[in-house]
């Protein structure tokens, strides 16, 4: 479904990604893991259009993303839950969700999608009129995911969903991701918390210093001695 080929990207003179390629098939859950500064967030941002690619090609269902204007990418079915949630802090939960439906093609389905999100996250329904910035980290993460789901995306990009959250909350978030997966959604997750993410995805790529290091199924990676040493502190 999502096809990233030999993509390089960076910020001004600083290059963060070198010739990275990956695939995500329909219905799959794929992770990109790696240490801090590996370029994981950069990868997400190139796919969702927040930053331009310096080289390479990205295709969504065989249609090139890089040709389209950046703000139309969400219209192609790619929804991005940014690093650090990035909710609109002074708007209510419901207004945040509404923004997820901004594009004209999504607006008519607003009520339907809102019910879907509230069913998935009953806590959000309780807090629908609460100002987003006043919620806890875990609740904000839920809201951010909900906002991305409002556009009924074909693939959900998640950037470090566990960042800044307490371990108990992290566990809840990944339970949630499993739940979303069971609804059939395709997911690409970028994470530092290797243990948690590997239990919800089928495959993972390892990114280090902007370059693709290796890939494998979750089982393979969980059992790999090297992975255990580098990322799980064994």
């Amino acid at each position, binding site marked *: 479904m999502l096809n990233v080929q030999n993509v390089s990207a960076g910020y001004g003179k600083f290059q963060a990604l070198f010739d990275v390629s990956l695939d995500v098939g329909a219905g799959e859950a794929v992770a990109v893991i790696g240490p801090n500064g590996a370029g994981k967030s950069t990868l997400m941002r190139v796919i969702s259009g927040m930053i331009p690619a310096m080289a390479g090609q990205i295709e969504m269902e065989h249609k090139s993303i890089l040709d389209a204007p950046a*703000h139309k990418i969400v219209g192609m079915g790619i929804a991005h839950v940014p690093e650090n949630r990035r909710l609109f802090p002074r708007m209510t939960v419901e207004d945040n969700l509404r*923004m*997820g439906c901004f594009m004209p093609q999504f607006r008519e389905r607003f009520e339907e999608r809102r019910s879907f999100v509230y069913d998935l996250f009953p806590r959000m329904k309780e807090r629908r009129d609460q100002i987003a910035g006043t919620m806890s980290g875990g609740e904000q993460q839920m809201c951010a995911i909900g906002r991305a789901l409002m556009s009924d995306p074909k693939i959900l990009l998640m950037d470090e969903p566990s960042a800044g959250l307490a371990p108990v909350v992290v566990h809840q978030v990944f339970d949630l991701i499993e739940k979303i997966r069971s609804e059939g959604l395709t997911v690409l997750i970028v994470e530092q918390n290797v243990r948690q993410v590997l239990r919800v995805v089928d495959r993972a790529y390892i990114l280090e210093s902007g370059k693709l290091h290796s890939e494998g199924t979750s089982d393979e990676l969980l059992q790999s001695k090297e992975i255990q040493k580098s990322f799980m502190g064994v």
Partner: protein
Amino acid sequence: MMAEFMDGLFSIFFVETLINALLLGGVFALLSLGLNLIFGVIDVVWICYAEIIMLGMYAIFFLHAEGGMPIILAACCGIGVTALIGWLTHRFVIGYLLQAEPINQLLATGGLLFFFQGAAMVVFGIEFRNVGVSLGSLSVTEDIYLSWTRLLSFVLATLTVVVLYLFLSRSYLGAAIRAISQDREIMILMGVDTKKLYLLTSAIGGGLAGLAAALLVLQYDVHPFIGLSFGPITFMICVMGGLGNMVGGFLAAFVFSLLITVGGYFAELEWGYVMAFTFFIAAMFARPKGLFARNS
């Protein structure tokens, strides 16, 4: 002197003054609404905002007094003209300076201030022009006369704030305009074309200037430098109300008009302005982000 002061305080003219202050507040509120919107959303100070109002006044004057258009239609066209000017201002000036220092943005609009004044002078000349439409006064009691124009401004200002509020809180575009001032970077993930949204906001801000122009043109003569008389006040109202805070700006407008009118009642008109500006300076010291700003 105290006796005179107390006499002055309880006279019927003081009551009239207070009511006029209220109505003047309406005019100020209308003046600062557009600037506040642009301030709050795009985070730029358009120091030339009063000059855009001036151009709107000229447009209405020429369409009505010289072109014979009915005044209401001329006002609508005036709003269209200023909306276009707002759009152009962002497209060709601010749009290139979004990453620049705020002070540079302010200075660039300062350049536009000169440009608009110069252009108005060249094209329209320096004579004072009056559109020649007077709505007269409403006699509330035997002694109190209220200008219809001021009443109209007050009503229109309140209406506009309400309409704007509804637009911002109920519509998708309104939500997007609120959102972009809170996190510009991720708007792209919502499918929002930030450039277009800024242009729209600038056009709305310009259009609101046209609305202010429509009311001012009924009360005052227009000449190229008229912006200098109400420009500074307009910025200060916005800042004092808290950037982007519509309600705050609305309230600040009334605080200002009260100070100006009351000051002008007891002494020369200019002392009213001195009071208002001094209050502004003091208010800035007390609450640098504006009297009604949210604590962030």
